């Protein structure tokens, strides 16, 4: 029965779904939303459509972007990360104490920044290790590490505000290139690096794969644990950098430097289309998400929405954005956690 076999093969092949290589259409939602929201605000408020305000939006997005770069990889693995506030606090104080400041006569300059980022990476590594060795869900390990980070920060803070007198660090927030603060360019760089990692590094691809089918990696002889730890470490490094950026903005090290960044980063990533189940989305998605969120915050102030309402409106729009992205792909008997 070969002749019908071959005949039938044609049928099968003809009906085979066309292989998808690049970005699929369902990822187009967030960018469209971004354009729409931007358009609406531009129409509503003259103050919003000024060039200076666009710069302002981009500058304001810088820190959140870096945090989100870190968290995106964790989300791609299907894990979750709440450690941003703690790690940022720790690195913020650390860098303030390491560069020229009013508390001690350290003046390590760039080295200090590097050390602070390393501290962040170290803390991130800890939560990764706790995840793979103790088998504790990342939700808890990162929550714990966040507390630890805040503790460490408070220890180093020791009651006296460390103020940064280091020109270089302070300059990052002030000096501009092509109208954008250096911090903003750093954020751009982070997105680029993140994208390269995601596209061209084994780490990034495996993070993606872990979110897709972790057990398969194990079956293919891949030891997953190291990569998980590595991803959390990398995320920690990003948070560390973000902490440094906050310090350079405030000109002083604050323990609360990272307050609230955990959930806003997750929200941004999700709005951008990096789903919590893992295996979907990516850095560029998240970047769009960050812009969307920042444009909202800025626009709402510009059009004069009461500060009380702003949070609510944002929440509403986040839900709406996700709904818009999800509804087209709704299926019966679909699992939504």
């Amino acid at each position, binding site marked *: 029965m070969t002749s019908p076999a071959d005949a039938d093969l044609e049928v*099968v092949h003809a009906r085979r779904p066309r292989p998808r290589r690049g970005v699929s259409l369902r990822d187009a939602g967030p960018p469209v939303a971004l354009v729409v929201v931007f358009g609406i605000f531009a129409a509503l408020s003259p103050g919003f459509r000024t060039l200076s305000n666009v710069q302002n939006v981009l500058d304001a997005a810088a820190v959140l972007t870096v945090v989100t770069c870190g968290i995106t990889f964790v989300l791609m693995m299907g894990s979750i990360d709440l450690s941003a506030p703690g790690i940022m606090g720790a690195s913020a104080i650390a860098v303030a104490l390491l560069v020229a400041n009013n508390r001690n006569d350290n003046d390590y300059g760039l080295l200090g920044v590097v050390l602070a980022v390393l501290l962040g990476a170290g803390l991130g590594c800890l939560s990764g290790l706790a995840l793979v060795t103790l088998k504790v869900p990342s939700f808890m390990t990162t929550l714990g590490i966040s507390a630890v980070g805040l503790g460490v920060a408070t220890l180093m803070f020791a009651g006296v505000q460390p103020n940064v007198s280091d020109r270089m660090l302070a300059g990052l927030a002030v000096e501009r290139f092509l109208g954008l603060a250096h911090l903003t360019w750093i954020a751009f760089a982070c997105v680029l690096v993140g994208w390269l990692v995601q596209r061209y590094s084994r780490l990034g*691809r495996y993070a993606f794969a872990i979110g897709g089918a972790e057990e398969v990696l194990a079956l293919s002889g891949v030891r997953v644990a190291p990569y998980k730890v590595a991803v959390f470490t990398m995320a920690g490094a990003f948070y560390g950098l973000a902490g440094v950026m906050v310090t350079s903005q405030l000109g002083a090290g604050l323990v609360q430097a990272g307050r609230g960044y955990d959930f806003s980063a997750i929200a941004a990533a999700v709005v951008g289309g990096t789903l919590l189940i893992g295996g979907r989305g990516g850095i560029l998605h998240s970047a769009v998400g960050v812009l969307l969120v920042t444009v909202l915050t800025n626009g709402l102030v510009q059009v004069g929405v009461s500060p009380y309402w702003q949070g609510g409106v944002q929440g509403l729009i986040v839900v709406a954005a996700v709904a818009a992205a999800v509804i087209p792909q709704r299926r019966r008997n679909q699992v939504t956690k």
Partner: protein
Amino acid sequence: MTTNLTRPPGQRVPATAPALEVRGLVKHYPGVKALDGVDLVVRRNEVLGLAGENGAGKSTLLKALVGLVRPDAGEIWVRGEKVRLGSIADAADHGIGMVFQEQSLVPNLTAAENIVLGSEGPGVRHGIYRWNTMRRLAQEQLDKIGSHIDPLARTDSLSFADRQMVEIAKVLRIEERTSHPPVIILDEPTSVLESKEIETLFTQVRRLREFASVVFVSHRLDEVLDVCDRVAVLRGGRSVGEVPAADAAPAELHRMMIGSTGSDDHYHGAAAERPDEPRPRLVVRGLSGRTFRDVDLDVHAGEIVGIVGVHGSGREDVCRALFGAEPTTAGEVVLDGARLDLSGTRAACAAGIGYVPAERKTEGMVGPMSVADNMTLTKQGSRCTGPVVRPRKQAKLVDRWIERLSIRTPDRGTAIQRLSGGNQQKVVLARWLVAGDVRLLLLDHPTRGLDVGARSEVYRLLRELAGQGVAMVLLADSLEEAIGMSDRIVVMSDGRATTEVAAPADGKPTPLDLVKEMV
């Protein structure tokens, strides 16, 4: 029959040493002896069939061969040298690779990545991907098996058959690790393939034999005999013998497997007597949905109607639609004169419709929950008085069905995922029977992944139900099964019900007849 199982190493000339040899392999699990001294020889460039019922130790043996299970005793020899396999990577280094029963591909990676996954070699330098190299490596593999898949396509955008090709290409990567011809293990490769896809798979397997040894595991004895050179049979963790495929009949193999005569009975005798009613129990008119268009279908009480069709014919979706698990755009369904509400599964259950999903592990059962809870999940009424659960009532009911279907389980509290596939499937079936109000059963590959014994038990059960007047729609695992079990067979292609073939006990159509209709 067991001729050349154990030879003292001395006498063996390495040149002709078998590609893979297993001696006296033993593996204990708490309570059970999974392997009890298995001997096995895989010669070079041959396809060895491995047959045996569930629990005969097949899966344990295979896992031992790829280093996923460490045997308690016994030796594994590869090309005349004794080896100790600690991990999949170890096995690969010795040229042993396995295509797993459930496909083990990462859906959101490209085919190329899946093929080289874990052994990227030059594809990754210092942790950095080199996509072109990666693509080239993958292409080489795909060429070996003459597949035309785009290496950079996302795996989840490929058809099932193509994914299996990717899987084989992936396993063939082990050639890069060893200079010797590899040993490829195919565990139940056909269990989820359509008959035509199976044909292509077999051509691949025959192609593999040119440069590799293949261990082929399947529950379908006819397939095994079709594609293999020799067949080795396991029973109760021991190798009970082997036969050259050429001169062996399924019945003989089956006898060796279960240790007694008995036939893998697809073809039942006289169709069950059923009260002939004027109007059919289920009437479907012009049912349309995403993947199927105005399907008409009649099923009488006590009748088994098989639906056959190639991959993508939309028959699965029709089945789900009848259960309210797949949206419909048009058409109406009438059950015993009452118009059926297709908005959701609840309504279907209430109307006395039962559904046995193809994906048992993910859709059929709730793994960690007990046999009892799984059995009573749907028909709460069967274990409650009013809204209140009566543990005693439930216990009695469940135990009755455990006994009635002879479900082998330590007790009703055991998590269902600890049972063997056949028993799991029986529990899933029992779920629809406990309330005794089931009128129509939708069976989506009810015997997928079951061994011969378990399968014939399921057949017997279905037949019995038909006898009691339950109407059934059957999406069979194989054409033979469809022909054997059904009273009528509806052929679907391109989402339409094209023809209908009568299949009375005394006038069964041949597979070929159906295939002609299907394409």
